[in-house]
């Protein structure tokens, strides 16, 4: 009996402890006192090294006020701290969807900033990154109106099932950080500008090698890169001399080997297309060979351009990870990549000829 009472008292103490501890009253931030910035801009400051701008929606009665607050500081965390001093609510950085970096900063190098962003766990690693060459304040103010009506605007730009097209690159914070440390993978960041009728305009992409921007690619070249890295989704219209074909899906298969002359890659591209316009009554096989020639030319052009810049956003080095020993792989970009020979085979199938009959 006494043992039962003793056990009962111990259990009672334990339950009381549970009740006290699980309320979590220590460090909550009330939802009314939080503010959730959506887009952050980092550019070069005039007096100090960085200028950090945050676009902060402040909920008011029956509407949403969006403010752009900028502060200059010598490091990015100090800049955010300075912004925190002046904003009345608690700023919750874990919902930032897009970080925009100015082009001058990208050319100087983002390696330290990326490493610190991942170390600090302040930003979610799936935040999208973008580069801009226009004025940061103008970009952030331009997007104010769109955010006021729909706060998930930037997610939609990157969502495959919403507005993302294969002509734009997409990179998140973790991928960019990986590319600064990885031996065989670089990254493309989209270049954005404030749009006139739309929220954003995409102006090609920036090639980043070890965190430093070393070149630009145009829209079409970005499309080719997305096709090569198997990120093609949706549809894209290719205009040939006498027809227009819409590409529905693109898959790339690789085989690699290392010879005495250097590494060699053979890439086989399967394109499934449908015929959307055709001006002259030409047979299907001619359209197919036209597209194959066009694509082959574009593939080789983009690949050669990228090999010359010395950056590897196509991830071609990944195919050689099993063939080159790990210590030598660290020199992939300097030793093996310039000697790389890539051969492409394009195989086009027109699945859908539409409602009219077409000759073979």
């Amino acid at each position: 009996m006494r043992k039962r009472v003793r056990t009962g008292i111990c259990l009672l103490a334990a339950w009381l402890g549970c009740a006290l501890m699980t309320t979590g009253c220590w460090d909550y931030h009330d939802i009314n006192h939080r503010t959730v910035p959506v887009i952050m801009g980092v550019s070069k400051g005039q007096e100090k090294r960085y200028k950090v701008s945050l676009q902060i929606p402040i909920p008011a009665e029956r509407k949403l006020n969006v403010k752009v607050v900028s502060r200059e500081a010598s490091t990015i965390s100090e800049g955010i701290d300075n912004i925190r001093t002046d904003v009345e609510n608690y700023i919750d950085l874990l919902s930032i969807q897009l970080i925009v970096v100015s082009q001058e900063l990208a050319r100087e190098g983002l390696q330290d900033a990326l490493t610190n962003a991942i170390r600090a766990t302040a930003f979610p690693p799936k935040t999208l990154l973008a580069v801009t060459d226009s004025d940061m304040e103008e970009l952030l103010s331009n997007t104010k109106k769109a955010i006021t009506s729909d706060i998930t605007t930037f997610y939609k730009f990157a969502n495959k099932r919403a507005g993302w097209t294969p002509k734009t690159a997409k990179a998140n914070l973790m991928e960019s950080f990986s590319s600064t440390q990885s031996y065989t993978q670089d990254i493309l960041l989209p270049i954005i500008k404030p749009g006139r009728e739309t929220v954003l305009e995409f102006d090609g992409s920036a090639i980043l090698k070890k965190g430093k921007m070393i070149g630009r690619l145009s829209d079409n070249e970005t499309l080719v890169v997305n096709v090569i890295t198997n990120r093609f989704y949706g549809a894209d219209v290719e205009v040939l001399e006498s027809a227009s074909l819409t590409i529905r899906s693109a898959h790339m298969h690789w085989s690699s080997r290392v010879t005495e002359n250097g590494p060699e890659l053979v890439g086989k591209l399967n394109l499934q297309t449908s015929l959307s316009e055709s001006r002259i009554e030409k047979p299907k096989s001619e359209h197919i060979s036209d597209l194959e020639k066009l694509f082959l030319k574009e593939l080789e052009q983009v690949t050669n351009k990228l090999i010359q810049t010395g950056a590897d956003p196509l991830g071609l080095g990944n195919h050689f990870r099993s063939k080159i020993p790990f210590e030598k792989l660290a020199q992939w970009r300097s030793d093996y990549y310039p000697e790389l020979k890539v051969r492409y085979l394009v195989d086009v199938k027109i699945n859908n000829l539409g409602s009219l009959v077409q000759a073979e």
Partner: protein
Amino acid sequence: MSRGISVATFFLVLQFGLLIFVFPQSIIQSEPSGHWMVIIIGWLIQGFMLRLFIGGLRTEKTSLLTKLQQSGLWLRLGLVWPYILSNMVAIGVMIRGHAQILSILYLPQTPLWVLLVLLIVTALSISYAERDSLLRLSLVIGAFGLPLLSFTIISAINYANLDMIFPIKPTFDFMDEPRILPAFSIFVNVFGLIGFFGPYAESEKRWLWGAWVVSLFFFLMNVYLPLSAFGQEVADNLRFPMIVLLDTVRVNWFFFDRLSLFYIMATMFSTLINISGLLWVTRQLAHHSSFVPRLITNPLIVGSFAIVFAYFVPSLEDLERLLLSGGPLRFFLLFILALASVYYRNRAKIGGQPRA
């Protein structure tokens, strides 16, 4: 049959909590390639210990716990009390490690003692229950935790790139690297509990061996998913590779933002079971003793001691250094307990006296 599945779930749930702690980091950082060999070696060591503790597939007649409860003075001083002390330290290490991880990743402003007390206090009331209720609870927790886990793993598979797991050739570099020792202790920690929940019937043993096979899958997944998404040279720098990978996963149709929260939730469930199991065993071992041993092994006292111990460890790195030396020590102790278990089993077969 239902008893069998609860024992198997108990085995899996116990393993799972320690997997995020130092396991992927120490395996990825200890050698540049061929991690699968280290994992398979650890798994085989686990199989060896399992064989010693529960032995084959025949029904057992004795239970290690009852034998230890009724043992004489020398055995108690030499084996049982070091084991109880080691349990206290193990509880302290576990709650400190998990509290620190929560503090780094999710709650940087919460004071540390709050997290420590929170982790213990929920486990306290379970430790006063019977062995069967503990197994039933582990079945319920497994029913919550394992689907959460599978959901997070499946959503991360999309981000895996098969090319990045190369180079895959195994090397023996890990033998020189002291960083591998914490992983070693994680492999054998589960036996501090499994051996004491006997006697197991034949069907239960079959389920236990099956759970051992399934745990290989979890070990491999935990190391190879971050490796295939990032590559060896990037994952080397990450402190929590699996969690960063899960934070990068974007699931568009789901209303929760951070998937790693589910992973941590499953881990916390497992820690709950781990701590309550250890507290239960500690309490049961002093069942027939006099007042003072029973006071010391009371779950509230053990819990407070563990909290005090955990609070005074200066930092997470010191905790890992503790694991470097403490891990093999605990393994040694469990190995001796395993040998004791074999001894008692053989004596029961021959028909020896029911006294140690």
